[in-house]
């Protein structure tokens, strides 16, 4: 992990692969959290 990182380039944007993975994961987790069914619908 101490070797030089991979960098993605897109116009003015340069982002490390690690940071890109983190950000993409965040978006995925956010969407999943919104749509995944939540257990238990019993009402008092």
């Amino acid at each position, binding site marked *: *992990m101490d070797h*030089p990182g991979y960098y993605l380039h897109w116009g003015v944007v340069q982002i490390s692969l690690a940071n890109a993975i983190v950000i993409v994961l965040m978006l995925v987790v956010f969407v999943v959290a919104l749509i995944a069914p939540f257990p238990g619908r019993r009402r008092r």
Partner: protein
Amino acid sequence: MSASSVAATPTDAGRDAPVWTGGYRRYDLVKEFVAALAVMALLTVILAAVFGSPDKPAIPLAGWAQNDPNDFVVTAVAELDGTSGTATYGAPYVNDPTAGQKLGPLPLQRWGGVREPIDTAQDFVLGPLSTVTGDPMLTAALAQYKAAPADQQQKWSGAYADALDKAPDNDPAKVAAGDYGPVPVLTSRLLDLARAGGLDGQLLTEKGFYQTDYAKPLLFLADGAYLEEQARAEHLGGNQWGMMNETGRYPGQAWLWLYTFWYQVPPFNKSDNGDALVWALMMVLSLVLVLLPFIPGLRSVPRLTRVYRLIWRDHYRQRR
């Protein structure tokens, strides 16, 4: 959504956040917290065990002097003749009313005051060299330099700086002949002192035995090109989105993405006052984030984008 709720202020509870008169569900908060703690602790341990963490060793002045002696000497000359980054910085290191960034007409940098005064020639070069004993050539060179008037000192160091610039690889050994006075001796002795590790300690403990202020060794190091070369090789440079990045393949401070973004685009990346402009802009944007509930238009985005219909879909379905 009724028009009245668009005009509702956050303190008006009734219209945009009606009192809940519906049912409740069993919800074990403490169990939820314990579960969350277990999940986060487990994830942390797994990530730490699999990926570890970066720890690229610091570069002491000794390391700089050993690995890039030519850059060290070029920097030492600049410190001596007051042309280095630190020497021309302005506040908080140097009292120079013309130096420093401004936000429009406001000289904010100067207003901070010279709270960490540094005389680069004395603190980085002459002072450390004066402590060396048993070197008659050095002692003589120091005496010659200190006795000379200021403009003579400037002539010597200016000429030597030009000569180093023209020399192949900035190598002091390949410098053309010229009148540089005692400057070549001073800088080559400083290089020796640095290589042996003496300069690291000297710059840190000039003021006393216990020190935690690394300003002097760090500023000297950062005045050279070597530190930046190492940093740019790791994509940590300012115009490489460096603020977000980390050495090696690790994720960095991705949350700094907007802060570093401005440094990649005009006018910030071209302006002499770029730092001040970026800081001011980020202060404003931070205030916008904090005061979002009070900003018309922005605070209506959630209602208009209707992502909430996904979150509360069961609720809306049941009300139909």
